[in-house]
């Protein structure tokens, strides 16, 4: 028998504290759509997605009604599109494929489709090279297609040639979408140690070893965690950090189980296996739904001040502990995100100058996922972008964790300018790289940074 207190606690989390499911993402394997004629491939891709995902949104809407819980985004993650580009030539083929994905996503009413992906940590096939080089046209020509490139793993090391290619490509994407302030670059994530089952965009894709089709779920909950911390502090203003960690852990337990409930129900109704709950705390630009506000509730008045990285580590660890007990199906990225533009508190701290790019980089060493949704001046060079990607990849490879870079060089903008992408992508202030030049010779050497010693674990 449920107690009144339990019932009202759940209602409060759902009604007042922004507990929702951030993403229900259906993975779909498209390898069987490969072929020599791109028109045929595109038609097969569109048909398969329409068939597999036709009921995804309707099922999510039914679950929203039954549970009184908002499912913010319904998304698709496909097997790497680069596999469908093998044997094809010219940007037109990649754009044709991307348009088919866009059309299919529109038809089944999902928000985004991820998996325009290349895995190039050790080397690059012709199809992967074509995918990367076509990204400016693809991301400018489509609305819902998201891309990712994995340039490093702990096992393989860092493919510096790929990093340089991607860095140059990011500038081309930004210029190809200059009329929307380089928004195309917000749809590309550069990964180290990309997870195969991540439900969050822009980096979702269906990796090797995954089923033919699968449902993965990304939970949210920054607002719930923040309120829990605030209540702990209100109950006992002298509460210690371990008291706060305990509070976060218990809240993460509830949040994670909500995600698993929705994921398993959705999977059962759609007739596909359930995959994982990604227990990342994913903020939105809404006030009260911010990861930065959690750190403030802990006592970090100015985000970026010394101690901020420790606060991030505390939160990330407590979320994992609560989530790991809640469910044995935890996967994906599973950490606290720090996407600057999508989190109003982080965005304000960057605008105020207390939170710098370099501090954000330090924070990514102890959380998920990396330098995320950061606006850079339009005149940032490819070498500078490559250096940022290399630094993040080094953190990921050395610590055997996922790191990522989603940076947007905004054409025509300078440090301090404001940019607004709208919706969940949020708004922010263009920020400076503290020391933007000086590593060009290192970056341009290219080649490969060998895997660290810890890769030899067998």
């Amino acid at each position, binding site marked *: *028998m*449920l*107690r*009144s207190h*339990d*019932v*009202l*606690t*759940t*209602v409060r*989390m*759902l*009604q007042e504290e922004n507990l929702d499911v951030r993403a229900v993402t259906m993975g779909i394997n498209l390898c069987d759509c490969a072929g020599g004629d791109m028109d045929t491939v595109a038609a097969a891709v569109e048909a398969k997605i329409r068939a597999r995902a036709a009921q995804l949104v309707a099922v999510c809407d039914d679950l929203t*009604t*039954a*549970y*009184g*819980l908002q499912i913010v985004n319904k998304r698709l993650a496909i097997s790497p599109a680069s596999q469908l580009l093998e044997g094809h030539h010219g940007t037109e083929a990649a754009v044709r494929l991307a348009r088919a994905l866009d059309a299919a996503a529109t038809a089944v009413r999902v928000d985004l489709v991820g998996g325009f992906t290349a895995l190039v940590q050790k080397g690059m096939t012709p199809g992967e090279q074509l995918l990367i080089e076509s990204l400016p046209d693809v991301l400018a020509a489509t609305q819902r297609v998201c891309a990712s490139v994995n340039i490093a793993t702990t096992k393989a090391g860092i493919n510096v040639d790929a990093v340089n290619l991607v860095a140059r490509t990011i500038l081309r994407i930004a210029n190809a979408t200059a009329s929307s302030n380089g928004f195309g670059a917000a749809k590309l994530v550069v990964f180290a140690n990309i997870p195969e089952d991540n439900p969050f965009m822009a980096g979702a894709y269906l990796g090797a070893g995954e089923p033919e089709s699968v449902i993965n779920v990304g939970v949210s909950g920054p607002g719930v965690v923040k309120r829990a911390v605030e209540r702990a502090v209100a109950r006992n203003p002298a509460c210690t950090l371990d008291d706060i960690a305990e509070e976060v852990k218990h809240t993460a337990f*509830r949040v994670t*189980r*909500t995600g*698993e*409930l929705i994921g*398993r*129900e959705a999977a*059962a109704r759609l007739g596909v296996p359930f995959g994982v709950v990604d227990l990342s705390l994913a903020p939105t630009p809404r006030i009260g739904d911010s990861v930065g506000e959690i750190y403030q509730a802990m006592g970090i008045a100015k985000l970026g001040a010394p101690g901020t990285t420790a606060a991030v580590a505390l939160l990330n660890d407590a979320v994992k502990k609560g989530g790991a007990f809640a*469910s044995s199906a935890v996967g994906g990225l599973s950490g606290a995100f720090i996407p600057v533009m999508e989190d109003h508190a982080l965005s304000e701290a960057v605008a105020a100058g207390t939170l710098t790019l370099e501090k954000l980089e330090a924070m990514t060493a102890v959380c998920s996922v990396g330098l995320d949704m950061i606006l850079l001046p339009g005149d940032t060079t490819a070498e500078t972008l490559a250096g940022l990607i290399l630094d993040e990849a080094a953190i990921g490879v050395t610590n055997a964790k996922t790191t990522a870079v989603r940076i947007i060089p905004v054409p025509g903008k300078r440090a301090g300018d404001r940019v607004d992408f709208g919706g969940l992508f949020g708004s922010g202030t263009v920020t400076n790289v503290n020391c933007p030049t000086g590593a060009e010779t290192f970056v341009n050497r290219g080649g490969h940074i060998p895997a660290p010693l810890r890769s030899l674990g067998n």
Partner: protein
Amino acid sequence: MAPGSKIVASILVADRPGIMRDITTAITDLGGNIDGISQTVVEGYFSVILTAAFPQPLEPPAVQAAIACRFGSQEASIVVRPFVPVPREPRLAGGQRYLLVVSGRDQPGILKRTTTCLAARGINIEDWSFQFDGTQVTYIGQLTVPRNVPIGDVQRELHRTLGQIDLRCTLQHENIFRATNEVGPIKSLLQESADAAQP
């Protein structure tokens, strides 16, 4: 438990320590085994409903008299009837459990509006509780919703009728509450729901 007997009893009495002892002693001394019981206290009044099985044939008045002699004259209202199994309302077979939470300023008519809406759709109230906080009241109802009732329509009707008197309400499947408050595997919880949904 043939050839014995079974009764259902309801007792209403001003609350005080020892009521449960008095009732259960009376039944136990008659050789009875209490196999179903639910009690509550509202505004200082204690109420209990129970079922009890006896190994021997026993008429309800004998049980009533045994309980009554444990209380002062006029202290308790006692009803004892032969237990007759109540068949489950066919529409509720395979129904799903939902929780209704209604909250806002206390005023006459809240329960009438709510229960009228539920009864019109054949929704059964399994449990109902409330709590006051000053002038504010919160009702929590555990309901069984027949399988073919569109829950979205019920939610909209409740929002409409209760919104007219400035009340808030939520109607959600009980699994969301169990998932966030229990520690058992989610798979088991969903299996229980699926089993219960079998007509």
